[in-house]
């Protein structure tokens, strides 16, 4: 195939198919190049200027996020963010979405999402040690959705299990809006010796650009552009834009990169993963950060297909590839080092002083453009925003459920897919490899110890898009605070956040308003608890036939535990322990699971979140855990007190007897800022003296698995075994 000429590209407006607008194309021709870009160059601009790579639509909003604290060693702009945890160590983490690929090819889409996020961590010089994920699908009704769920879960497990990193936490939820646009967000956390930190830069004229890892094929070409477009009935089959993963190669690549940085830090000046927009994005970003130029010779790129064009090689998103910047005197050492791991490593170019990005292919100069025009000259958009009508219309609507039978409602709620146990899925993930997992999936947060120290890291992925849909600002705050409560309930201090911002088309003013307001909510909550947002990604254009998903920010939070003795789980420990509820309960039913159960949909505004009270309750729990007064602790979220009590009892097949002045309906209220705590009888006085306010004594843990509940309205006895079965079996039943 002969490529269209620059003139033909201009005349046929081919650039539009690749996602460049007329005005962007004009900017490139008239202000940057002062000539027409050729085929390869047009391709490079189109991917580098896509939303996925440039954040051109979201940058203005993202600046609202706090990204500083005493712990931050690196924030947004690197492959992943870094937080100091003392003793010369740091944690490195990031979350990334792989929504579009997973919709089209669920197994590989999800698998390569995991592979990509792992590379982001070890490219910083860190040893990855844990994985998490957040998944959203349509309701488990039809075979197509179940197939999608099975394949995504298998892809995540297939990659993580093989590479040997434990999946320690995550969440799965189901709403109608995700039926044709599932969300697959993956997070990886790594440990870094501070001295091993490597920037993704290519500096110093004459230094070499080395390609390491899998060969380049035609897979994933234009993946970034594809991820920045919507799905429609006619546009959902772009399989060529999906990559194929090989966790075995990545395992070799990970071990090799971690080892070379640890043992030979002076050999390597910079290292970066080839992720979205592959070779062009990684090399252009590395050169841009150092304000240098690059020459690449594509004939040296290891290829697994024949007759690949420069355009195809530069845009390929083949997996398991890294770019290194290496001092020439260590070239032979570096190549030999990777060869010992049986990995391809070749010099494909060098750093220049002229700030130009030049590519040679078959002895022809096929690209000659300013490096920074790819990364810095992208126009930034200030999109118009409009509050959607539903917000004002429904603001004063207050749903209050009518409870005909507390027992039946309670039992049925435990079967709701968003509440029921997700063990059916997460037991297919290896959560224990490395033998450092202290708290496995199923508690509030996953906890991993740091071998050789007393420290441990708590990690969680949280989102509740129902709240964000009803009120993006308050919903954004709730998302952060729910994550924080999960971290705190595990015995940790929240120290930082990564996020995946999943929304519809930002060119729709209502969608942009949702993005903007929810980010403001997230930012205010993060500031309140001093958790800077140090990395993350934005996934826009999540639409199907012009129908947007709920605004769905996902918060990945990390917490530090200074002594593993403080690790706390949700499980009631033994009969006789005292049960307390910290935090007041109100009629907060809008957006709740009980509203969904009773009406089939969600509606109404949200009560503003009192950030001071939220922070206070988190601090009280931390103090109580630090003083050794807490036997178990569980954050209250979906399904309210009823679900929190049940989940806490299930693990050791215990029961409870409680009495409360809440109404039966309020057992299901989802008021924020609440924790369920159990305390050993001998710690009663110390606990009550510490907490002092906003707590209610509910009753005791019992040996017998029955749930004896007295509300303001009635006294009931709930069969705990039946409850446990309902909760445990619901998902497996739905998946049949």
């Amino acid at each position: 195939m002969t490529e269209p000429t620059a003139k033909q590209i201009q005349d046929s407006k081919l650039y539009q198919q690749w996602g460049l607008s007329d005005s962007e194309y004009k900017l490139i021709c008239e202000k940057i190049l002062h000539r027409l870009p050729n085929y390869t160059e047009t391709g490079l601009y189109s991917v580098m200027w896509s939303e996925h790579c440039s954040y051109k639509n979201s940058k203005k909003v993202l600046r609202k996020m706090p990204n500083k604290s005493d712990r931050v060693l690196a924030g947004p702009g690197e492959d992943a963010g870094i937080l100091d945890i003392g003793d010369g160590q740091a944690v490195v983490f990031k979350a990334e979405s792989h929504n579009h690929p997973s919709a089209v090819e669920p197994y590989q889409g999800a698998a390569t999402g995991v592979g990509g996020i792992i590379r982001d961590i070890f490219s910083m010089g860190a040893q990855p040690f844990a994985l998490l994920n957040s998944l959203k699908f349509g309701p488990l009704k039809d075979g197509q959705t179940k197939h999608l769920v099975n394949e995504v879960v298998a892809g995540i497990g297939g990659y993580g299990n093989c590479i040997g990193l434990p999946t320690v936490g995550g969440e799965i939820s189901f709403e109608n809006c995700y039926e044709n646009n599932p969300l697959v967000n993956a997070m990886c956390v790594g440990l870094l010796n501070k001295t091993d930190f490597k920037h993704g830069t290519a500096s110093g004229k004459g230094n070499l650009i080395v390609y390491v890892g899998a060969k380049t094929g035609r897979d994933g070409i234009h993946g970034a552009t594809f991820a920045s477009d919507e799905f429609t009935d006619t546009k959902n089959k772009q399989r060529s834009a999906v990559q194929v993963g090989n966790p075995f190669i990545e395992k070799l690549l990970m071990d090799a990169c971690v080892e070379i940085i640890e043992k030979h830090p002076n050999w390597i000046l910079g290292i970066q993963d080839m992720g979205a927009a592959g070779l062009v994005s990684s090399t252009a970003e590395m050169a841009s950060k150092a304000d240098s130029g690059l020459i690449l010779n594509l004939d040296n790129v290891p290829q697994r297909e024949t007759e690949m064009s420069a355009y195809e090689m530069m845009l390929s998103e083949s997996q398991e590839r890294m770019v290194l910047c290496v001092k020439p005197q260590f070239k032979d050492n570096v190549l030999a080092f990777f060869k010992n791991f049986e990995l391809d490593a070749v010099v494909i170019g060098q750093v220049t002083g002229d700030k130009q990005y030049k590519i040679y292919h078959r002895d022809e100069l096929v690209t000659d453009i300013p490096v920074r025009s790819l990364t810095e000259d992208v126009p930034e958009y200030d999109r118009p925003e409009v509050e959607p009508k539903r917000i004002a219309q429904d603001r004063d609507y207050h749903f209050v459920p009518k409870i005909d039978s507390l027992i039946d409602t309670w039992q049925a709620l435990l079967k709701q897919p968003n509440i029921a146990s997700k063990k059916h899925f997460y037991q297919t993930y290896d959560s224990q490899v490395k033998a450092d997992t202290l708290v496995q999936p199923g508690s509030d947060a996953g906890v991993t110890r740091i071998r050789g120290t007393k420290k441990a890291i708590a990690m969680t992925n949280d989102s509740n898009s129902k709240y964000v849909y009803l009120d993006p600002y308050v919903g954004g705050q709730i998302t952060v605070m729910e994550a924080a409560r999960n971290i705190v309930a595990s015995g940790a201090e929240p120290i930082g956040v990564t996020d995946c911002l999943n929304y519809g088309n930002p060119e729709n003013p209502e969608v942009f308003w949702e993005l903007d307001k929810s980010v403001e909510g997230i930012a205010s909550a993060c500031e309140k608890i001093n958790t800077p947002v140090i990395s993350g990604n934005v996934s826009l254009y999540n639409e199907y036939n012009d129908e947007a998903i709920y605004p769905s920010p996902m918060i990945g939070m990390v917490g530090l535990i200074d002594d593993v003795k403080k690790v706390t789980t949700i499980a009631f420990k033994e009969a006789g322990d005292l049960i307390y509820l910290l935090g007041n309960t109100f009629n907060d039913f809008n957006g709740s699971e009980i509203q969904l159960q009773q009406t089939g949909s969600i509606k109404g505004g949200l009560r503003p979140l009192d950030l001071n009270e939220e922070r206070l309750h988190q601090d009280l729990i931390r103090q109580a855990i630090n003083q050794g007064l807490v036997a178990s602790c569980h954050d209250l979220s979906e399904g309210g007190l009823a679900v929190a009590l049940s989940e806490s009892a299930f693990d050791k097949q215990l029961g409870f007897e409680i009495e409360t002045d809440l109404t039966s309906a309020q057992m299901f209220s989802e008021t924020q800022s609440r924790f369920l705590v159990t305390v050993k009888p001998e710690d009663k006085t110390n606990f009550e003296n510490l907490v002092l306010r906003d707590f209610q004594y509910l009753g005791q843990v019992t040996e017998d698995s029955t749930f004896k509940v007295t509300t303001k309205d009635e006294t009931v006895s709930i069969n705990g075994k039946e409850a446990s079965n309902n909760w445990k079996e619901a998902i497996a039943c739905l998946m049949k």
Partner: protein
Amino acid sequence: MKFAVVNFPGSNCDMDLYYAIKDGIKEEVELVDYRKTSLAGFDGVLIPGGFSYGDYLRSGAIAVHAPIISEIVRFANEGKFVLGICNGFQILTELHLLPGALIQNEKSRFICETVTLQVMNNQTIFTNRYTENEKIRIPVAHGEGRYYCDEQTLEELKANDQIVFRYDENINGSVDQIAGVMNRQGNVLGMMPHPERALEDIVGSSDGLKLFQSIINQVRVNN
């Protein structure tokens, strides 16, 4: 006493085993590359779990062609102890150092869970610190861990007390709920569950510790 942990490309439980020896029972241990051709100086060999060569063909099928393999076979034939865990067990059956085979789990899904095992034979190098029929909690994590052998082999395994561990509940469809078997001489053990992940209560169970202590115990008695 000096242990070798053999490291194949794609092994991912090698460090867990390394720490089990170094920190768990505080003995000498070294990682041995699959390209090495000698195990001289070692008292025992541990083959770790993971996905050697990605397990793309069949679990363990490619690893058996690595240079270190002939040395492992020699080691086993000389009566020195060899322990294969998970992928290591798969490699040992591929090598026919142990009878039977490991095939895809009955429900064809990967399963990660801490399960209850019963110690069927506590008169072995690997289990002498356990009591007879002791129930222990050990994690499993595998997609191809369903033990299969024909009836005649099963009868032989039973007659010779070669079944070392059985699952309390048959999680993967294994013949006779077998979780671990040894060779007739008793110096080669393969098991799907991961004792190296159960060395401290803080990670959920310390029931795996006795397995490693048993080895030390036995070797000390022999010496």
